């Protein structure tokens, strides 16, 4: 225990330097050996002989430690290792045998132990204590730099790859849900292959991107959604489709570990791109071994709709209290449940033209959606020798959504080769090719082409299957309700044709060369490139767009980074260590895109871009370049006090040449208090840390500096031109800054049984580059300004414990909690509020308002007088609306938590994750329509005798009016969409997110097949909602990964999934 000795020697000095902060006497510390739990027991014996025998046992349970090395300190050639019983015999040469020697006993997973053996001793027994892993643990930080955890001055969270492979999410980012304090991850309700939304420590930008940077093996990848994120009010095939993000392409089986740098100092080396935090993914590498290692992983899972609305089933299809008895009436009221009392009568006619008994149909969601399935097969081959190691993996994921016709396939091939070309020269290459193909991704947002609208809105006495197949013999949509824009879901399933293909190549190569033993030069270049093709056919014969419509996107997107670094490490004597790094990077992002749009298939039912009556192909190009230089230095003082400094300078092509560069500094320190102060014996260690960092960035979009003019497609001989953008350009644009201060501590107690990590942070974005929505009367709809200020403050807590640990049974538990308070400090001069999104039909708005949290839900309330009476408009007999700027809830949950419990018994393990989010709200478009259409229980009043309204008039007179049954829908309930507040609910929830029951098969019987290990698990995701406040939908029913959260808009229902996972190693 070299460190301990050093400490002892310098204890006094340290006390002086650390004076004042501690009250314990510097002289009262106990034996460091005891404190570290190391015991040496002598079996007394006195003789000068050359053989030293002994046993090495685990201090915990006295079991033998097999393979431990026993060496003479300073003379490694003299050594041996323990046998299967933990025994060893060390023969000392005569010159050593006569005097005391220092013996070092070590083994992986245990703290090394040194003891001085006097010539009198012939046999010793050593109890090795399991290492408090934190001390030795190494984590990957920015730019792939590995650091000891204790040297970290900021919070870093790590998840091992196994956390993603058993109960898997197609999109690996969704698997972060509930696992890391401060990471708010949500999957979208957009089917397999959909995007994720991950926000670390609150939204960092008022209108720009707030999602983290994803980095694989030290280099960034692209995480954009081709053609842009779907919109909360997205209408039609392009704006309403979630085409999947970049991280969705990563195969969980290839992940060795994932590390989350929550921002600030942790991400400072990424400069402009680290402002929202960084998620580092380290992929698996091969190992030097005999033969080829083969690993197979297979998962089959099924999913079903998990949440069903609590609708009324007292009054059935119809309007004005009358049920339909003709086809025309049935078609007109296809979505209306304002009919007669459901009485089982037999003269009821539905939109299929047939007579049915007038009875409630409660299973429409079950009947419309199917059981979704996902089958994943991955195989990895790995191996190598001392010079070259490789790992090749192939994976295929095949998913069928709960929505028939919606499928997603992902094939991934990943090859990782590392070579040690000489003692000084190393090379590594990682290539990944993958192909993602989606079919009929469901349109969400608004009604047109959204298959879910029918499932959720069909009248409650209609069995939705009566409306299948949704088209006639000619392929034309069958009319089923009053609004043609509400597509028959079966027509979507059977006739819409959406396909998207993404061919993606990620290549990384690096060469590093050790100029000196402690000076390494490294050059890395990476390119993430994809070629994307999206075509979405709204077919001929639809009710709303009878001649059909075409949407297409073709894009080539690339993210290229080239980096050189020089890394230097040294120690100055025994006291000061230095590792320094300097480098330069150039990044180029390019998107060459064509958007295709057309209407009217000239030859009906023939779906080619060449067959459109009206068509446009619009080029969208963007190129962004950022050049950077950076450096960092890590200094440690006697391995207990650490200081990290970093600096980075970025130059942005997107900014005005006058102001296109900025320097980002960061400083951090960590201090192993337990190495200096005598802690109570319960503490294994206690570390304090503090950091301060500035990161920031340039404009997110190119071409926002100068006004430009573009041609407008026109068929006439007269050319047309307009300003290129509805956004006001800004020639003065300069970088924005995000400053984070973070304090924290981590500790481990009771021999590793309990560990606590806590952090508080204060993050402030200033000069945020905001695309400020402005009054259209300005001639533009937004202005790009350097004006935003946004604050996020929060706390994070991680508690991990091992309440029970024995050789057969163990229980591990881990709890994380985070609270983030966001506040919009400034938008722009004279602008105190603006909207970043709204629901379909503008019934609810997601606004940023000064003094309020980021992304609040705003809208209308009913006007009430001081006594709380509703004020009615005597013209319309409806409550008066307030203005639309009423704060109705936070669109983002400020509180997040997760609790994982893992039980292991022999070869079995049981793992359950419960997570919760609290304090946010959600506006439900589904409930707006279910109210207008009479499905909600809240629409029951007035069905028999009319609805008596009571309140006051605007003048303050008493008001009373009875809405007759005949007009109940059209005169009253249909108009309740005017009052946003009715449809905003607390979105807090607690979910049983994940359960894994796993069994390691005894491989004895399989050994002949070459199986080295086998594991089978039963897995489930999103199994139960333990707590929610929304009666009719899952509060996580989001449909866009854009900034405007807090709107449910009749996307694909959330599902629960369950399946089986098999892992075999050969």
């Amino acid at each position: 225990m070299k460190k301990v000795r050093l400490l002892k020697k310098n204890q006094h000095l340290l006390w002086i330097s650390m004076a004042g902060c501690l009250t314990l006497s510097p002289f009262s510390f106990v034996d460091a050996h005891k404190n570290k739990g190391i015991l040496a027991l002598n079996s007394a014996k006195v003789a000068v002989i050359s053989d030293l025998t002994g046993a090495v046992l685990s201090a915990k349970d006295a079991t033998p430690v097999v393979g431990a090395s026993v060496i003479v300190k300073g003379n490694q050639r003299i050594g041996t290792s323990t046998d299967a019983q933990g025994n060893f015999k060390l023969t000392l040469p005569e010159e050593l045998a006569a005097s005391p020697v220092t013996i070092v006993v070590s083994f992986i997973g245990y703290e090394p132990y040194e003891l001085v053996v006097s010539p009198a001793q012939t046999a010793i027994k050593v109890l090795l204590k399991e290492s408090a892993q934190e001390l030795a643990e190494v984590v990957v930080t920015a730019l792939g730099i590995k650091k000891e955890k204790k040297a970290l001055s900021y919070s870093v969270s790590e998840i091992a790859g196994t956390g993603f492979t058993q109960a898997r999410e197609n999109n690996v980012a969704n698997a972060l849900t509930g696992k890391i304090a401060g990471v708010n991850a949500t999957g979208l309700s957009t089917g397999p292959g959909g995007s994720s939304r991950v926000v670390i420590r609150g939204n960092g930008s008022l209108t720009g991107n707030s999602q983290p940077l994803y980095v694989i093996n030290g280099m960034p990848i692209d995480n954009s959604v081709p053609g842009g994120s779907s919109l909360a009010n997205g209408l039609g095939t392009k704006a309403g489709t979630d085409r999947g993000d970049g991280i969705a392409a990563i195969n969980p089986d290839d992940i060795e570990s994932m590390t989350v740098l929550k921002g600030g100092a942790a991400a400072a080396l990424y400069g402009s791109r680290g402002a929202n935090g960084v998620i580092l993914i380290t992929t698996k590498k091969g190992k030097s071994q005999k033969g080829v290692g083969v690993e197979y992983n297979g998962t089959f899972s099924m999913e079903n709709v998990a949440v069903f609305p609590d609708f009324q089933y007292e009054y059935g299809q119809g309007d004005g209290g009358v049920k339909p008895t003709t086809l025309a009436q049935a078609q007109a009221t296809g979505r209306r449940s304002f009919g007669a009392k459901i009485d089982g009568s037999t003269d009821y006619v539905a939109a299929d033209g047939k007579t049915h008994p007038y009875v409630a149909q409660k299973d429409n969601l079950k009947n419309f959606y199917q059981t979704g399935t996902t089958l994943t097969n991955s195989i990895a081959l790995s191996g190598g020798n001392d010079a070259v190691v490789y790992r090749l993996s192939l994976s295929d994921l095949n998913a069928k959504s709960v929505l028939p016709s919606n499928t997603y396939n992902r094939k991934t091939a990943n090859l990782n080769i590392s070579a040690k070309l000489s003692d000084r020269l190393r090379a590594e290459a990682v290539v990944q090719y993958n192909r993602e193909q989606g079919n009929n991704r469901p349109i969400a947002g608004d009604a047109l082409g959204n298959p879910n609208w029918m499932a959720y809105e069909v009248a409650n006495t209609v069995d939705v299957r009566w409306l299948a197949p949704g088209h006639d013999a000619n392929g034309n949509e069958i009319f089923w309700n009053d609004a043609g824009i509400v597509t028959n879901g079966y027509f979507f399933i059977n006739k819409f044709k959406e396909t998207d293909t993404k061919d993606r190549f990620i290549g990384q190569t690096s060469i590093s060369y050790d100029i000196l033993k402690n000076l390494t030069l490294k050059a890395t270049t990476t390119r993430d490139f994809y070629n994307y093709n999206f075509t979405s056919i709204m077919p001929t014969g639809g009710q709303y767009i009878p001649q059909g419509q075409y949407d297409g996107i073709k894009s080539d997107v690339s993210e290229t980074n080239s980096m050189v670094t020089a890394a230097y490490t040294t120690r100055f004597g025994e006291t000061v260590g230095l590792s320094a790094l300097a480098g330069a990077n150039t990044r180029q992002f390019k998107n060459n895109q064509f958007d295709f749009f057309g209407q009217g298939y000239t030859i009906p039912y023939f779906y080619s871009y060449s067959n459109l009556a009206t068509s446009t192909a619009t080029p969208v190009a963007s190129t962004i370049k950022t050049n950077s230089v950076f450096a960092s230095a890590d200094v440690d003082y006697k391995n207990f006090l650490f200081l990290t400094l970093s600096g980075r300078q970025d130059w942005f092509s997107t900014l005005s040449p006058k102001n296109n560069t900025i320097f980002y500094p960061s400083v951090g320190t960590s201090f192993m208090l337990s190495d200096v102060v005598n802690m109570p014996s319960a503490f294994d260690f206690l570390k304090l840390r503090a950091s301060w960092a500035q990161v920031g960035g340039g404009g997110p979009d190119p071409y926002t500096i100068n006004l430009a003019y573009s041609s407008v497609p026109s068929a006439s001989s007269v050319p047309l031109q307009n300003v290129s953008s509805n956004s006001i350009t800004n020639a003065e644009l300069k970088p924005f800054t995000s400053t984070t201060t973070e304090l924290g501590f981590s500790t481990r107690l009771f021999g590793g049984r309990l560990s606590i990590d806590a952090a508080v942070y204060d993050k402030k974005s200033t000069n945020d580059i905001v695309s400020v929505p402005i009054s259209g009367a300005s001639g533009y709809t937004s202005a790009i300004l350097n004006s935003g200020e946004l604050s996020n403050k929060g706390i994070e807590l991680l508690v991990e414990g091992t309440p029970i640990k024995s050789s057969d049974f163990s229980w591990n538990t881990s709890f994380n909690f985070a609270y983030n308070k966001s506040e919009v400090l400034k938008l722009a001069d004279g602008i105190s509020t603006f909207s970043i999104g709204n629901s379909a039909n503008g019934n609810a708005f997601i606004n940023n308002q000064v003094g309020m949290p980021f992304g609040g839900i705003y809208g209308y309330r009913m006007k009430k007088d001081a006594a709380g009476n509703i004020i009615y408009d005597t013209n319309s007999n409806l409550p008066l609306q307030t203005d639309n700027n009423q704060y109705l809830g936070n669109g983002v949950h400020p509180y997040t938590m997760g609790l994982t419990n893992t039980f292991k018994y022999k070869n079995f393990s049981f793992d359950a994750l419960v997570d919760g989010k609290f304090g946010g709200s959600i506006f439900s478009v589904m409930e707006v329509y279910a109210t207008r259409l009479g499905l909600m229980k809240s629409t029951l009043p007035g069905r028999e005798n009319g609805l008596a309204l009571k309140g006051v008039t605007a003048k303050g007179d008493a008001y009373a009016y009875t809405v007759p049954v005949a007009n109940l829908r059209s005169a009253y309930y249909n108009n309740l969409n005017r009052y946003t507040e009715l449809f905003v609910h607390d979105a807090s929830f607690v979910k049983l997110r994940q359960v894994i029951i796993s069994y390691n098969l005894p491989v004895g019987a399989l050994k002949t097949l070459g199986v080295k290990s086998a594991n089978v698990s039963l897995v489930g995701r999103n199994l139960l909602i333990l707590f929610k406040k929304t009666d009719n939908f899952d509060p996580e029913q989001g449909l866009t990964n854009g900034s405007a959260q807090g709107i449910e808009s009749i996307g694909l229902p959330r599902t629960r999934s369950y399946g089986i996972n098999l892992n075999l190693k050969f």
Partner: protein
Amino acid sequence: MLLLPLWGIGGLCLTSCDKDFVEINTNPNAVSVPTTPYIFSKALYDGAANSGNKGSLLFGLMQYTTSYNDVEGFGSKYTASQVNATGGVFSNSYPTQINEIGEVIKAVKDDPSKVNLYAAARIWRVFCYSRLTDLYGDIPYSEAAQGYNLSIFQPKYDAQSAIYADMLKELETAATSFDAANPTTFGTSDLIYQGNVTKWKKFAYSLMLRLGMRLSKVDATLAQSWVTKAIAGGVIRDYADIAKVSYLASGQNINKNPIAWQLLNDNYLRADGVNNTEGGKFQEIFISSLKTNKDPRLGVLSVVYVNGVASSDESIQKGMPATINGTKPADFVTYSEPKQTTVLKVDAPLLIFTVAEANFLLAEAALKGWYKTETASALYETGIRAAMQQWDLISGVSNVIDKARIDSYVTAHPLKTAGTVAEQTEQIYYQFWVGIFPDAQEVYNNYRRTGYPALVPNVYPGNATGGKIFRRFLYPVLEQTLNRASYNEAVQRQGTDDLLTRVWWDK
């Protein structure tokens, strides 16, 4: 300190780090210097398209069309749930035609050689603003569309009285500034007159006549002075001078007649009379009226589908009642709808200012004694004839109304000169209603001003107005948040942002 020597690695970058940035940050699909005539053409297309005529709203309100459904039927039913739809014209217009015409004016106004371009652009700007203020009342005007030039992101709203004063002044200045000797015009980019300065001048005075007459209710004296000035300047009286924008049968949507395209797209693409997308049909009141008066336009405007074939047989034409409450009627197919070869013809020109309108306005001026050169009855008759004749312009001679039928109609409907001024005004604006169709917005403007035609409002359950035809459109709801102070100031001055609040000239 430690970092400084390491900076060397990037040192080469410090001087050359941004050398290609200007090029990289230049949009390859855009130019930095505008071609003004091309923007002018765009402004003409947009100004013609973004008006109250787009969609079914004013067509419903003026009782030309209706639908059994509440969304499409909003205009004819005033359904409370749809009131925010009225904000659309405002939000669509500023970032398009208003900003575009501002770009044009910015580029030409200080160049004396472009005086004719400047004058035409000013006239078009007046046209565009007049369409907006007539619908909303007070609107951003003096500070509008200055987001880029002056960084005005929250333009104030000007009082409609001030806007009218400025628009009329602008028309006068522009009309008198034309220089016929200067050959520089917008030429073919001028989709209305192909650079004909004389015709632009007539258009300017015609707009002056229209806007001057608009003030008759609120300030008769002021109205009279502008009407007199307009007449003296010379308004559009000849068929060849009609202000119109021409369109194409195929190509981009912007190249299609916006009224026809929107009606067609909303309802009538299938052309079978059955599966009308939004349940739209002609309204009963309009068709009955044409029928009762044996109006020869009936067969030109309207068809009924019989066994899937469009029939113009006047005897079977009938409009759909606006009172149908949400249910598609069983006899839906038997109702009249717009004719594909006339009202729905996408390559028909859009008439901006017609001979018919000039004559009707002059007839009213004559009735009021502001114009004495011609008689009200002669002007009225000329107006009717011009209104009937112009369908050949719209339909491209395929639907020319027989002169004999025009004669007999005119004979049957003379101006009742013996009647009161009110009775004669009613006659004129009844003819305006049937004659200026499909410019529903101009019909709406004159309806509000004169009260004619005497439309009977629909009292529909769940209507927002208590069964009254609304008097203005609502501002876009976004203005309440993005331009709050200006919005509040306007509401303070004009009255509640309500469908029944009257605009200044309607008070």
